[in-house]
């Protein structure tokens, strides 16, 4: 092992509280960490306490109103809890449940090894039922990204472009930057980074194309794929 991610995380958090998505991570004097929702109103002793990384998976699973959260970076993390973790190993696993892959992607970004993939390339390699997504038009894709990727739906910062040299537009500039503007939060933050459009966006792109083609069927419409997903 050349680069231990858990050790890097421990070193980064040693200087005090940090934010990751909607979480506040606080090192506990004497060892361990406390996690809670960053916007939790006091009094904090009223929070329901749990321990260990397994509890993090349960906390990440549903919204406050009991809806399933397939996208963990949606701004819908439930409140009313505090999670105690004994060491950095437990913390790392808990963060991987709450914000999957985000600590690892942050490391790759720091190391300069994170390669953003333009949307057109992500869509071009789709097969089966998702092959239709590659037929999305630019204006449809722009509108879709504004609907699906805005901070009201997902807290990740978009690093990819529509196509090489063609940036995503129509979203606030902060949404497209891997770093926060200085002074915007009370403590340091590990960013949530999106280096490639997710399956949710690809699936939505397919829906947009299918809807358009249903509304206005074209005689030159491409033959449907016969692969199992279709």
């Amino acid at each position, binding site marked *: 092992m050349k680069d231990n991610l858990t050790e890097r995380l421990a070193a980064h958090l040693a200087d005090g509280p940090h934010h990751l998505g909607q979480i506040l991570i606080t090192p506990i004097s004497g060892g361990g960490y406390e996690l809670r929702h960053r916007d939790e109103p006091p009094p904090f002793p009223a929070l329901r306490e749990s321990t260990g990384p397994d509890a993090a998976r349960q906390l990440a699973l549903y919204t406050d109103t009991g809806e399933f959260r397939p996208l963990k970076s949606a701004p819908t993390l439930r409140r009313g809890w505090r999670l105690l973790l004994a060491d950095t190993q437990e913390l790392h696993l808990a963060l991987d449940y709450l914000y999957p*892959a985000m600590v690892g992607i942050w490391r790759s970004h720091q190391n300069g090894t994170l390669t953003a993939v333009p949307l057109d390339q992500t869509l071009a390699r789709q097969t089966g039922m998702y092959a239709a997504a590659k037929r999305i038009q630019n204006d449809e894709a722009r509108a879709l990204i504004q609907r699906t990727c805005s901070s009201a739906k997902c807290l990740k910062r978009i690093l990819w472009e529509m196509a090489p040299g063609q940036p995503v537009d129509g979203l606030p500039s902060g949404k497209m930057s891997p770093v926060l503007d200085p002074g915007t939060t009370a403590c340091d933050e590990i960013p949530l980074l999106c280096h490639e459009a*997710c399956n949710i966006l690809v699936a939505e792109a397919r829906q947009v194309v299918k809807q358009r083609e249903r509304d206005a069927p074209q005689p030159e419409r491409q033959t449907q794929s016969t692969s199992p997903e279709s």
Partner: protein
Amino acid sequence: MLSKPDSALILVGHGSTVNPDSSSPTFAHAETIRRQGLFGEVHCAFWKEEPSLRQVLHMVDCDEVYVVPNFISEGYFTRTVIPRELEIQGPVSVIQNKTVKYCDPVGSHHRMTELLLHRAAEIAPGVPPAQISLLIVGHGTSLNDNSALAAKREVDCIRQRGIYAEVLSTYMEEAPWIADWDQFTAQPHVVVVPFFIADGLHSFQDIPVLLGIDRETGSAASQSNVFRQNPHHLRNRLLYYASSIGTEPLLAELIVDQVANFDAAHPKRLSP
């Protein structure tokens, strides 16, 4: 006992954007293997959830990575989607400076038969197998790749052991239809084991309706307060309905074994 302290294991599941139980068995098996300390790291990755197949390698420290699909059969996902998304070129690939070894899916392990027998015996304790029709239910149609063929293969293996009066494969979307279970079974006791990885939409919500246990599609397994009571008195038979074979805890052993099988089939000298 396998020991790979310098290797990572990535267990790949399908996942779902609508059903919270789809990824649960994959996470559970990963946690079991993690606690055994056999690998330096254990991670999950999914097609429809996070971490995605495009994200997961960034989580890995180790230079050597074994990828085991937590899928019931070889097919579209194991041959097309997973290799494409991970950029796997063959059994051994170098991706992001890591040596990635692509193992067979857990469902193709020869001990799946043993797991099906274990689950069937567990669900109907004390019932003489000579009075049992055992049904292995798969999805059917081409949607789930070769799962229908895999179910048939398992049925043949179980039949050869001569334990049960009858062993049959049956499907949601092709004949013999699971909805007609009483038409093609002869025994007073009918044991149904879903040949799926998770208690997702199909095994917990669709099949119970087709069997006649539920009148309408219920909520997700983990959100249901009603534990299924076996046996169900239906159509003049006693029906026993098991949860999906993929939820069987012993599956974790088979996942680890797929790594050992990979090493046996691909000696080190063949690695790049």
